[in-house]
């Protein structure tokens, strides 16, 4: 079922804590808004005044290059005043609690906090104590909603609709917040989602998410319209999740040969950072089906859309 193009103009929640709870209409609104935002990036003067006078704090408790840079560029293109707080320079190292850190930042009256944290549920926690809008930039192994939105945006640029597409997501399912957000988004939009990885890295009861789970990669890739690869963290070997990187690549790595099972116009995606030769062969990552760098490019437009909508969208612009 394709999402109906009803004309909603705002998100119901003040926060973006996750894809969970978003309706197809809301997801479509973000993606449609991102289309308009993408055009701004191609102008000579890449700046609009939409968030003029708004203060956005990027609160990152976990190292991140791609996501933090992407948010910061998005904020600047919308003329927001931005501030980066990274764990190394914050008072967290002095033993302050997350709640106190957040309340102190909150006391300086920012409008939005973009939060990245290694513990699941931290965005929910902050949303209960902060007046600012909280945007989840990745919390533990829970959700990474802007990643799923930019993935959907990237697919939508090349496929007429998300509904009915076979999307295979392959890799470390257990520890991936990208997986959870993507499952929620893609199933909400009517895609046929397959997840694949070694049984040691498949979360309990994953079928209750409405996906097909398998450890046979050929089955997952066969006839797929989209193949998303998830990063394998090298330290997982120590937890005995799989024996070796070599064996992992042999059994689950995405090679050109495996990719031939997919549709001829398959898209290869990866949220980054990639481990070449572990979850994905370089020939595939750099090959003609890869849209990995498009994902990164689209990340800015999608985050602009999220920031814009949470700031009040067109309503806010009229008052400034």
């Amino acid at each position: 079922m394709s999402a109906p193009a009803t004309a909603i103009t705002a998100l119901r929640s003040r926060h973006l804590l996750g894809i969970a709870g978003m309706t197809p209409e809301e997801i479509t609104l973000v993606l449609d808004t991102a289309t308009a935002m993408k055009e701004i990036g191609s102008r000579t003067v890449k700046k609009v005044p939409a968030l003029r006078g708004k203060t956005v704090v990027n609160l990152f408790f976990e190292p991140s290059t791609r996501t933090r840079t992407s948010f910061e560029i998005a904020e600047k293109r919308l003329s927001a005043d931005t501030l980066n707080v990274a764990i190394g320079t914050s008072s967290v190292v002095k033993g302050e609690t997350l709640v106190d850190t957040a309340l102190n930042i909150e006391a300086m009256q920012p409008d939005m906090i973009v939060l990245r944290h290694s513990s699941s549920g931290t965005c929910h926690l902050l949303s209960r104590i902060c007046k600012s809008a909280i945007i989840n930039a990745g919390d533990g192994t829970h959700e990474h909603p802007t990643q799923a939105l930019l993935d959907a945006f990237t697919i939508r640029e090349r496929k007429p609709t998300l509904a009915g597409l076979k999307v295979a997501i392959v890799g470390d399912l257990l520890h991936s917040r990208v997986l959870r957000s993507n499952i929620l988004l893609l199933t909400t939009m009517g895609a046929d989602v397959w997840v694949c990885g070694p049984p040691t890295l498949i979360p309990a009861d994953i079928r209750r998410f409405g996906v097909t789970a398998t450890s046979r990669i050929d089955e997952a890739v066969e006839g797929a319209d989209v193949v998303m690869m998830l990063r394998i963290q090298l330290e997982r070997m120590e937890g005995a999740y799989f024996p070796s990187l070599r064996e992992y690549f042999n059994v689950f790595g995405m090679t050109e040969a495996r990719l031939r099972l997919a549709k001829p116009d398959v898209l290869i995606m990866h949220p980054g950072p990639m481990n070449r030769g572990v979850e994905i062969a370089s020939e595939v990552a750099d090959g003609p089906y890869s849209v990995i760098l498009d994902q990164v490019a689209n990340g800015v437009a999608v985050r602009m859309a999220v920031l814009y909508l949470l700031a009040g969208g067109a309503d806010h612009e009229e008052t400034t």
Partner: protein
Amino acid sequence: MKKLLKGGRVIDPVNGIDGEYDVLIDGDRIARVGRNLPVDGVTVVEMPRGFVICPGFIDMHVHLREPGQEHKETVATGTASAVAGGFTAVACMPNTVPVNDNANVTSYILAKAAAANLARVYPIGAVSRGSKGELLADIAELRQAGCVAITDDGHPVATALLLRRALEYAGMFDMPVIEHCEDPTLKGDGVAHEGFHAAALGLRGIPGACEALGAERGILMAELTGSSFHVAHMSARASLRAVRKGKEAGIRVTCEVAPHHFTLTDEALSTPIPYDTNTKMNPPLRELADRDAMIQGIVDGTVDVIATDHAPHHYDEKNVEFDRAPFGIVGLETAVPLTFDRLVHTGLIPLSKMIQLLSVNPARVLRIAGGSLAEGALADITILAPDMPVRIAAAVLQSKSKNTPFDGWELRGGVAATIVGGRTVYLNPGAPVARGL
């Protein structure tokens, strides 16, 4: 001085009593239970209609936190919480700072309990020194000082060998070994029950098998040694199966279930408040099939005891990221309303069974006084108001800590009064208990 409780429904399962009787208290003892007892020279307390008089409740799994963690709870606040919850006695876990692994700590706790003068306190000693799982604690001295059981609660006993030795050694005093059943490798750094809800929230899982493996190990060691083994805070259906089989085989194994494990499921992790750290405890809230198995075990008698695992934590400690929050919730003041509402008023168990689970059986497991209103027994009495509406309000709990997931819950059935050694130590201001108590 004599006091006559008149006109209540007396339920004393051990003595086969269930009906309208008078209870005569003389000093700290029960003098008589009978009909139309003489009222001359005694203070008569008329019981309101429907009130139930029963042997005092005993919570055999409580963390009083003193010595060392007085910011969470003290013996005084913990026993105030106990009597407000209808408990005339509590057994307190040894994971204090320092650990209750020697007679000095035991005596300290008992001195604090005597000073508080509310509920009776039965300390439980450590199995191993510092609960470190290496050398046995001075178990005979602990017993002499007043400990009624041993455990390394908070953690399982480190090895099967040490558990075997503890069972053998404590066996000479007929002291039960209480075990926090858990395989540490399967627990890992898990924070919630391994299932759909933990997967959806991105929380690291703890499977039911983690507990069941510990239960199976302990039951095997109980069979090997012939000593008494008690499974603490049981939550997983596989553990229940292990206990059931052990009992069928004649092994001396008993077990307890906490009210939160027969009330809640892991769905509480996400609803109504996602990542509420008051839904984080160890063992964790399990899935529906486990929750229902705990209820079934209570109904069919496999479960011996309802115990709260009362685990107070300071507000600051719980107001953090879910995976950084300590495990545990307070339970003393919510146990009776939850048991009434979820088990008795639903028709799953009769009131007499509730009294066995909360009074008779814990006294038997710990080999302590209580659980009976026989002539000459200690006058430890809980008076229940089975139909009283109860609204749980975390802010007004007697416990120093307010970490409960049941805040705002409306339940039916509560405690009207608590009597310890003939002395009224708690009167519920919301229950119309007659004057004179």
